């Protein structure tokens, strides 16, 4: 059996038997939903429906109903796309990168984080599918034989790379998530009392039985999927950044974009995981599994990635000055002091200054503070994408094309709608799916559980005494 050092804090608090873990994880699924759940679901569905209304209006009338105009032709759509897809990155980082690094604390949070990834990528997809203007022709994005005399898509274009990257990312994340869910669905199936629940979870569990051969293959598949997902997740946001970086627009044409986007993505994604899990652990009484230590670990990731983002901002400023290119210099001066200075100020405050507060242990182990910070970080990261896109496009090479951008109610409506959709799906997930990967968690009870760690420490003390 694996041994873990006593000085590492336990990852499972209290005295938990395998059966008690089963009971704790299955309680929200078998029990009745609280009134808070219904309240949150109602609010989310209302936002979602409002978004569907705005989406239908856009499709019926055209993207002229948005605030985008001739100069600022990318605005809310791409801002929101990059924001959502960035949020998704934390899920893959937790489930894949932390698996490769053998970080056991991932086990309590990976399921919910991966669900977040999938829902976030779905939200992101809405914006890219819609911004083409004629979404019923979106199949033109794929290299299909067509009636135009075999005019193919352009594989030199980063927008085309995006099509492949995002669709691969979504489908691989979905498969990774589902493969992990199968043993947990089997657990729910085997104890379900209601015939309908037994039937549904039976179908979803694919007949899983927990045979040693199947666990052996399961672990190998998880490891290889983690190995494939790790470069995949880095490639996705790198490719998203090349949508900007391969253009000739000053302020976008920078080689720093791929790593800077990836760090920003992980930064905002971890913030979203914190927002969600601080609520989930409270509502479903999972404090023994998602401990303060887990929250602290995530906050440490936020300090690291937040600092990388901060260094990237400063590097961009330095390089624009050092390049000696006046257009480049103006682009950054305009971001900081131009008509959208307030967006730049919000970005700098939320992303560079505020995460540094997590250097204080008191603050990074404080739940209320962490919760507020997690929202501030996501507001900051939204502004980052806004600052990259709108102030840049409203002041390009030709001053006669300069104009301002303000979002229309439809822009806000679709954005609100995706937030509603995200929370609707996430709330349904917490109610019907096991929120914690219980099978994996059971495998660390004997090495990282509080009871076993204390017993082990006592054993040592006893031995030393003699």
């Amino acid at each position, binding site marked *: 059996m*694996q041994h873990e050092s006593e000085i590492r804090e336990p990852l499972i608090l209290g005295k938990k*038997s*395998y*059966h008690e873990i089963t009971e704790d994880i299955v309680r929200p699924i078998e029990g009745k939903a609280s009134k808070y759940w219904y309240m949150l679901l109602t609010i989310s569905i209302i936002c979602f429906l409002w978004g569907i209304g705005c989406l239908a209006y856009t499709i019926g009338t055209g993207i002229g109903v948005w605030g985008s105009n001739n100069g600022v032709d990318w605005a809310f759509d791409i801002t929101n796309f990059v924001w959502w897809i960035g949020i998704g990155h934390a899920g893959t980082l937790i489930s894949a990168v932390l698996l490769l690094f053998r970080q056991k604390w991932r086990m309590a949070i990976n399921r919910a984080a991966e669900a977040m990834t999938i829902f976030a990528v779905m939200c992101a997809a809405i914006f890219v599918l819609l911004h083409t203007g004629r979404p019923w022709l979106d199949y033109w994005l794929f*290299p299909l034989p067509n009636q135009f*005399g*075999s005019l*193919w*898509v352009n*594989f*030199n274009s*980063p927008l085309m*790379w995006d099509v*492949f990257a995002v*669709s*691969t990312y979504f*489908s*691989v994340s979905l*498969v*990774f998530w589902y*493969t992990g869910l*199968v*043993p947990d669905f*089997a*657990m729910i*199936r*085997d*104890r379900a009392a209601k015939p309908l629940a037994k039937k549904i979870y*039976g*179908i*979803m569990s*694919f*007949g*899983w*039985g*927990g*045979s*040693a*051969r*199947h*666990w*052996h*293959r*399961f*672990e*190998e*598949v998880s*490891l*290889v*999927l983690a190995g*494939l*997902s790790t470069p*995949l997740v880095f*490639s996705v946001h790198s490719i998203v950044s*090349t949508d900007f970086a391969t253009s000739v627009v000053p302020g976008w044409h920078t080689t720093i974009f791929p790593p800077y986007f990836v760090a920003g993505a992980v930064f905002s994604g971890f913030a979203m995981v914190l927002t969600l899990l601080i609520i989930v652990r409270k509502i479903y009484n999972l404090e023994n599994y998602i401990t303060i230590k887990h929250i602290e670990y995530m906050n440490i990731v936020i300090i690291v990635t937040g600092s990388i983002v901060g260094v990237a901002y400063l590097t961009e400023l330095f390089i624009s000055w050092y390049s000696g290119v006046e257009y480049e210099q103006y682009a950054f001066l305009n971001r900081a002091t131009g008509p959208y200075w307030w967006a730049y100020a919000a970005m700098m405050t939320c992303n560079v200054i505020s995460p540094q507060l997590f250097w204080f242990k008191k603050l990074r182990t404080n739940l209320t503070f962490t919760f507020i910070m997690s929202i501030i970080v996501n507001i900051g990261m939204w502004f980052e994408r806004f600052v990259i896109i709108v102030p840049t496009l409203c002041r390009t090479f030709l001053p006669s094309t300069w104009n301002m951008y303000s979002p229309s109610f439809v822009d806000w409506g679709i954005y609100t709608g995706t937030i509603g959709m995200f929370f609707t799906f996430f709330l349904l997930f917490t109610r019907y799916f096991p929120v914690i990967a219980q*099978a*994996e968690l*059971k*495998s660390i009870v*004997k090495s990282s559980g509080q009871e076993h760690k204390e017993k082990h420490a006592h054993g040592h003390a006893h031995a030393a005494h003699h």
Partner: protein
Amino acid sequence: MSKAVIHAIFDDEEPLMASAKSLHAQGVHIKDVFTPFPVHGLDAAIGVPRTRIAITAFIYGLTGASLATLMMWYMMISDWPTDIGGKPSFAYYMNMPAFIPITFESTVLCAAHGMVITYYLRCWMLPGVKAKNPDPRTTDDKFLMVIETKEENKGNIESMLKNGGATEIHHK
């Protein structure tokens, strides 16, 4: 000569592991073990050979890379070469840098999905398949060992299992 099937249930993984090791050492055929979570080392202890599923992933990945290469060569270089933004499509190797992202994504796509489909088929796990565990408690907190043996060895093995810490023994 009749065959006997023994289902032995354990409450914890340590006695299960010890019993599996000693039985396997004495040449008893352990057909399978059903556990609520992956017990590390158990697969080796009962003689499960290392899975080759990672090799299939590699082959699927190579297929994905080749298909993407072939597709982009055909569409951009052979079928209708176009000069887009001053970047003419003269030869594959000249355009290759721009093709790397999609080649990579296609490799991952095929490797991941190919491997996962192989995994589900090899384990025969599909929607609607009957639950494979003989006892529903094995997905909660019980460990079940399935032993196939000759009728005359039954008593001997049963006493070994009981001594090893099995809490329940059933005959099938």
